[in-house]
Structures are given as structure tokens and as C-alpha cells.
């Protein structure tokens, strides 16, 4: 059987980069905690020899309760690996040793990689590798992953079998050690399991019964120490980590470097800088993305759609083929201009380490909506396109916040909805009226955010976020990352887009559209005051929001919409379009990120919201007009 190794370490220490360089696969690398969500698998080959390598998400401890920490804990318990490679950030050796010490207790062959040696050196820290290896009882390889320095040594050490089980033991408080012995004896737990039980961490192999039995011991220790065993155990590990780190590190005066944080994390000029950066990204993507999208759509129309229709195939094939081309246009029209561009800029922010600073500054405002500072990114992205915005929701640490953010992101007007609002209301009714739609949406977002943060169970937690080091971004990595996101988006959204577009095509082909129009016309007229064809156009907007506008023009048979619809009707059309059902691509991403149940709930919620506000507008507009 193939030899299996796994990379483990704190967030942003270079695990994914080492993984990429060793396996040649593309794991996403970033300077932001919590970006590797699943476990990446790859194979390292060196001549004839090979071993498999897993990239575990970055964590701070094996006893935490975040999704990543649970995942890693269960991975270690399942024992589907032969050795662990612990990656440490040499500059922050002490903090990184804390996790390493916990990992040594797993008692599996361990190899320590001391990464970012260059940064440690620049900070004036000289680390005695041999002394560190001796104290830990494992081989330690110094490396600079960004330059690929010494990475071959990692593979070589594994092939040569130079990896041993660590010999170091952590001296715990006598009471804790007694409790561990006790749990080992009576419940047959391993040392790490016994410690987890004492720390009151949920682990699949620890039964409820063991937890209940441990509770008595835990409260006894807590009573004697005035501190929970979790804190005692953590303090013991930190003490040893401090001892080791200070005995192997020699400090020399660091090279002087500019402290940009003096500018970036203060209210002034930090907040204006944040606002400028966010607004300019939005503007660039808005204009550049809009241009690119128009270009892609017109190119595809000229070179694919028009020639296809010119073939004059039999009507059924023509309808289905046309629908598929439409779906491709919709997908590519979002993927490259929006997903790629947004991720390009967000990756720059992420890799420079600015994103963590932005989250810090935005924290207060976001708390009102039931979110963290980390919720800023999805909110800003959502003005461009809901798809990358929802993809970025995985930056949020807690499930509850992911759901709140998804709802708000789907409600905020993306650029496509802006096209509808400006194309219909601003040009036919008036700029101020168009603006009022935005106001309505923002007020709704605010109300929904406040409500959800109270209604959704779970406590609102404060943000505890490690600030990433400020670094210069590397262009190739940013492009690579953005491309990965585009690929991801296409693979998620394309199938759904194709199917739904083909379905709508057939729907039209068999004349169901006319039947639907006839059926919906009375309802639509009474509830929304919109003729049936306008409602059908809204339904087409589900493929791509701009299509609601385009279809409306086609169905109305004239570009001068005022000839067929009154100002009030146009307003209701745009309002409903802005609020109701997110586009298919968004739904696909929602399903992927927060599950089918939540995605369905959001879809139904927005549908109701759109229809009810449309109906409300239908009732209120005549009142306004008579005054």
C-alpha cells in the first residue's frame, strides 16, 4: 500500500504552498485563516518512489470547536495516515509549537518543517535547528517554501524513513495527569482522547457516558484550580512551548521595516483607505466587467448564436440548441468578467494581508447585521455579482453567519440587477425613482439582517482573528487562484444553467410560454398590475437577471417600453426583479455553500419578498400618483 503523509499546522504557515510544490497540484494558497476547507489529496513522486500527501486545513489547536478543528481531529482519529508533517512558521515559533506539542501526543511518526526561515531571519530571530530537533525528538527541516528551498529534503526524509515518533512529553498539572491515567485505565482512552474528554471537546470516539463520568473529575479540578482543565492544559502546553522556543531562539536586532499598520488599522486614515479600496474595486469590476461581459455576449452572438440560428435546423433542435447557447453565454458572461476579476482583486487583498485589517475595521458595522468584520467581503462583492460573493462566504467561521450573509448577499442588487433598474426605471421613469428602489432594498437588507441575527439560533460571537503578515503578493499565485475560482464556478453553475435553460427553451418551443402567460395574466394583473408577458420576462430573469430586461423588450415587441407599460408598471417590474428569486447560478452556489435546504428557503423567501413588495407597490403607487 502507498505510504500516506498529511500536512498539519497553523493557518497561513505555508502548508498549501508546500503541498502544491511537492505534488504539483493546485491547492488554493492564501494569507487568510480558514481558506483550505476540505482535505486536499495528492501524490508526491520522486523517481520510482511515491507517497500520498494530504493537506489538512490550518488550525490553532486540536481542542478547538471550529469546523476545521473538528475535521482535523476526526482525521487524526481515523488514522488513515502513516506520518504527519507539521509545518511551523519560524517567525512565530512559540505560538506554532503549541499545536506541534499537541500533535506529538498523537504518537505517530512526525516530521517538523520550519518554514519561513527568511522572515524569521529578517525579524532577527536565529533558530538553532539541531537543538530544536533534539528537544522535540523529531527531525526538523528548515525551509523557505516560497522559493522552494529545502522542499526536496522533506520528500527525501520521508523516502529514507528518517521520520520517528516524537519523544517529548508535556508535563501537565498533577491533577490533570492523574485524571488522564484514570481515564486511560477505566475507559481505555488514549492520552489525547483522555485530554479531549477533560477539555470537554466532542470527539466521535468518546461516548456520552465517558463525558458524563469525566464531568465529576472536571468540576473537581475546576474547583481546586479556579480554572477549567481546558485552560490548565493549554497553559501547560504554552509554558513548555515558551521554554523550548526561548531556549532555541537567539534574538538579534531586526532589520528595520515600515510599520504600515500605523496607517491601516487606525480609524484614520484606515477607514478612508478601506472605503477607497472597496469602492475602487467595485467600480473597476463594474466597468471592466460590464465591458467584458458585453464583449463576450456579442462575440458569442456573432460567432455562435447567429450562425447556429442561420443553420435553420428543425425547430426543436433549434430551440434546445439556442437555449444551450444562451446558458453558455450566461455562464461565461459571469465567470470571466465577474468571478475572475473579483477574485483577482480579493486575492491581492488576501495575499498582501490587508483583508484581515479590513475585517478588523469593518467589524463594528457588520455586528449590527449579525455578522463579523469578515462579512465585509461578501457584502462588497455582492454589488458586483452574487456568485463570487457567496463563494467568499466560506471565509466566515460560523454556520450561522454563513446563512445570514447568504441571505443578505442574495438580496443586495448585483450589477445585473443594476442594469435592469437603470435600463428600465432610470431611462424610462427617472433617476430619482430608480434610486428609490435601491433605498427600499437597502432598508430591507438592514431589517432582514437585524431580524435574522435575532431569530437564527446561536450566540453572536466576537471576532478573534489573527492578523496576517503584510507581504508583497506574487502575481502567478493570484492568477492561479482566480482561475481556480472560475473553474469552480463553471463546474458548479454550468450544469444547472444548461438544464434550466434547455427546459425554458422547450417550454417556449412547445407553446407552454403562451399557455403560462394566459394562465398567469389574470393573477399577475390583479396582484402586481403587470401583464402576463412581463411576468414571463421576470421568470426568464432567473437564468440571468439582465435577461428579464431583454426578454421584456422582445416580448413587448418594442424597445420603447413606455408604449406598452406605464411608469408604475415599469417600476414594479424592476422592483420585483431586484428582489425576487436569485439567478440560477446564484442558487447553484448557494446549494453548494450552505446546503440545499437553506438555499431553498432563501429562494422561497426572496420569491415571497419580491411578490409581496411588488403587490404593495401596486397598491401604493396609485395613491402617490393621485396626490
Amino acid at each position, binding site marked *: 500500500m502507498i505510504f500516506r503523509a498529511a500536512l498539519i499546522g497553523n493557518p497561513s504557515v505555508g502548508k498549501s504552498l508546500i503541498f502544491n510544490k511537492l505534488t504539483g497540484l493546485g491547492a488554493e494558497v492564501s494569507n487568510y485563516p480558514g481558506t483550505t476547507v476540505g482535505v486536499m489529496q495528492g501524490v508526491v513522486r520522486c523517481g520510482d518512489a511515491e507517497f500520498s500527501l494530504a493537506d489538512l486545513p490550518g488550525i*490553532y*489547536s486540536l*481542542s*478547538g*470547536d*471550529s469546523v476545521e478543528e473538528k475535521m482535523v481531529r476526526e482525521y487524526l482519529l481515523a488514522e488513515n495516515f502513516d506520518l504527519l508533517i507539521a509545518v511551523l512558521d519560524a*517567525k*512565530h515559533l*512559540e*505560538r506554532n509549537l*503549541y*499545536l506541534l506539542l499537541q500533535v506529538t501526543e498523537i504518537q505517530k511518526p512526525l516530521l517538523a518543517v520550519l518554514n519561513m526561515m527568511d522572515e524569521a531571519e529578517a525579524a532577527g530571530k536565529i533558530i538553532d535547528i539541531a537543538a530544536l530537533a533534539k528537544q522535540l525528538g523529531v527531525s526538523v527541516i528548515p525551509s523557505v517554501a516560497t522559493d522552494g528551498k529545502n522542499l526536496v529534503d522533506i520528500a527525501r526524509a520521508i523516502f529514507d524513513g528518517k521520520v520517528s515518533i516524537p519523544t517529548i512529553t508535556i508535563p501537565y498539572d498533577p491533577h490533570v495527569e492523574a485524571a488522564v491515567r484514570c481515564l486511560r485505565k477505566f475507559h481505555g482512552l488514549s492520552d489525547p482522547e483522555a485530554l479531549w474528554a477533560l477539555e470537554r471537546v466532542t470527539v466521535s470516539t468518546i461516548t456520552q457516558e465517558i463525558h458524563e463520568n469525566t464531568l465529576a473529575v472536571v468540576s473537581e479540578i475546576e474547583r481546586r484550580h*479556579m*480554572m*477549567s482543565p*481546558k*485552560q490548565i492544559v*493549554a*497553559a501547560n502546553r*504554552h*509554558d513548555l512551548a*515558551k*521554554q523550548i522556543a*526561548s531556549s532555541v531562539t537567539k534574538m538579534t536586532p531586526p532589520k528595520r521595516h515600515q510599520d504600515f*499598520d500605523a496607517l491601516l*488599522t*487606525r*480609524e484614520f486614515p484606515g477607514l478612508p483607505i478601506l472605503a477607497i479600496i472597496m469602492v475602487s474595486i467595485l467600480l473597476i469590476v463594474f466597468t471592466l466587467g460590464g465591458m467584458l461581459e458585453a464583449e463576450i455576449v456579442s462575440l458569442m452572438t456573432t460567432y455562435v448564436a447567429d450562425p447556429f440560428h442561420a443553420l435553420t435546423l428543425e425547430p426543436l433542435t433549434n430551440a434546445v440548441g439556442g437555449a444551450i447557447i444562451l446558458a453558455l453565454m450566461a455562464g461565461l458572461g459571469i465567470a470571466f468578467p465577474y468571478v475572475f476579476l473579483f477574485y483577482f482583486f480579493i486575492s491581492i487583498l488576501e495575499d498582501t494581508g490587508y483583508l*484581515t*485589517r479590513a*475585517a*478588523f*475595521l469593518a*467589524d*463594528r458595522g457588520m*455586528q449590527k447585521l449579525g455578522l*463579523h*468584520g469578515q462579512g465585509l467581503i461578501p457584502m462588497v462583492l455582492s454589488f458586483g455579482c452574487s456568485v463570487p460573493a457567496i463563494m467568499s462566504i466560506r471565509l466566515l467561521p460560523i454556520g450561522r453567519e454563513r446563512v445570514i450573509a447568504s441571505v443578505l448577499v442574495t438580496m443586495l442588487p448585483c450589477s445585473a440587477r443594476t442594469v435592469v433598474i437603470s435600463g428600465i426605471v432610470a431611462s424610462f421613469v427617472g433617476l430619482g425613482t430608480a434610486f428609490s428602489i435601491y433605498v427600499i432594498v437597502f432598508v430591507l437588507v438592514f431589517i432582514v439582517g437585524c431580524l435574522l441575527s435575532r431569530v437564527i439560533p446561536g*450566540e*453572536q*460571537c*466576537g*471576532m*478573534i*482573528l*489573527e*492578523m496576517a503578515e503584510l507581504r508583497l503578493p506574487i502575481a502567478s499565485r493570484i492568477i492561479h487562484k482566480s482561475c481556480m475560482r472560475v473553474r469552480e464556478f463553471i463546474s458548479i453553475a454550468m450544469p444547472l444553467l444548461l438544464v434550466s435553460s434547455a427546459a425554458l427553451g422547450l417550454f417556449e418551443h412547445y407553446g407552454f410560454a403562451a399557455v403560462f402567460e394566459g394562465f398567469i395574466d389574470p393573477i399577475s394583473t390583479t396582484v402586481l398590475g403587470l401583464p402576463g408577458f412581463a411576468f414571463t420576462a421576470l421568470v426568464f430573469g432567473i437564468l440571468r437577471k439582465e435577461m428579464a430586461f431583454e426578454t421584456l423588450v422582445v416580448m413587448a415587441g418594442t424597445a420603447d417600453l413606455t408604449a406598452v407599460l406605464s411608469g408604475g408598471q415599469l417600476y414594479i417590474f424592476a422592483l420585483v426583479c431586484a428582489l425576487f428569486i436569485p439567478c440560477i447560478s446564484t442558487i447553484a452556489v448557494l446549494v453548494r455553500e450552505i446546503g440545499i435546504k437553506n438555499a431553498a428557503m432563501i429562494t422561497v423567501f426572496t420569491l415571497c419578498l419580491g411578490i409581496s413588495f411588488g403587490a404593495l407597490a401596486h397598491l401604493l403607487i396609485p395613491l402617490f400618483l393621485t396626490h
Partner: protein
Amino acid sequence: MTSILAEDILEEILNTGKEEVQLHALSLSHHAEAEIEKTLGSLVEHGFVHLNNEAIRLTKKGTEKATQVARKHAVLANFLTEVLGRQPEAASEEACILEHNISTETIDRLDNFLDRKNLDATTQETPPEYANHNNLTCKNPIVPLSECPEGSLLHVSMICRFAKHSRLVDLGVVPGELITLRRKLANNAVVITVKSCDIALSPEVSENIMVERCETL
């Protein structure tokens, strides 16, 4: 069930140190006479005191209750002065308010805590250098992290509502650790440096970290 005034009366009687006291000798001047009389009546009714004309005497039950309240007062006043660094008079005044609403269990724990603190201060069995910052803190008052000025060097004393912020210990914010307050915004969101890493904290987190200011090295 005894009211605040009732507890005050019992405590006052105990404080005089006499078997029997006259009602007018008690310093309860800031209460209305009618109210005192009414409370006294209910104290007699519940068997806390014997009333003989103007002379009041504590029953066994009354003495017990009075001792309990007095102990709470003493422990609280001690905590307020010793740990939080309040002035004795102010501490006593505040203890008077707190003593009525605090549970016996909390008082027991607080008492234990103070004992341990005194023990630590007297029996210095030379703990390793890295764990001992007593020489730096010089018994400064313990305050929430959010109340310290930017740039100060701080000694972590304890973390309130620990279970909610358990990630803090993994990042090295444990009692006994030295941290630097790198940045503080107007809303009390902070950036701290712990173990040479910068960590951003929301106001609700920074308010729950109790620290002692250190004299700068």
C-alpha cells in the same frame, strides 16, 4: 426571605458587638422610621430577633443570618480593595450594596480565590522566570483589556466567559501571559500582540479579558 433593609439591620446589630442594643443606637438614619419599624416587625415575626421594648436581641437564627451577610461584606470589601484596587471607604460602601445580591457559592469561590492570591504572594517558591511577572505588575488594579490605553504592556489575569472565547487560549491568551495592546479603536475593538503574533479582537471579546497593567520595562 429577607429584604435588603432587614439584612442591614441584622448586620448592624451584629456589628455593635453587644448582646442587646437600643433601636436608636443603630445607624440606619438613611431609612424612614416607619419602614424600619415595619421591617423590624417582620424580623420578629420570622424569629430573627427578640424585641423587648426598645431593646433588640438577635436570636440564634438571626445571628447566623447576620454572620453570613457580614462575611459577604468582608469578602467583597477585601476583593474590591485588594484585587481591584478600590479605596477602602468606597469599597465598603459598594460591598454594602453587593452583599445582598451575591450568592453564597460565589462568595465561597471569591474567598478561596483571595486565599490563594495571598498564598501566592507570601510563599514565593521561586517559580520559573518566564511565568512570573509579579515584579512587573506591582499589584495594579485588574481591569478589562478594553479599558487600557494603546501601547501598554499587560499581564493577563483571567478570561471571563471563557467557554465562549476558547480560541483565545489556543492563541496564547492565558492567565499569566504578557500581551501588548497594539491598537484600540473608539469602539473598543483591539489588536493585541501575543507571542509575537497580532490578533484582532471584537469589543465583546476585549471586554472579557481581565488584565493588569505592567510598568514598562
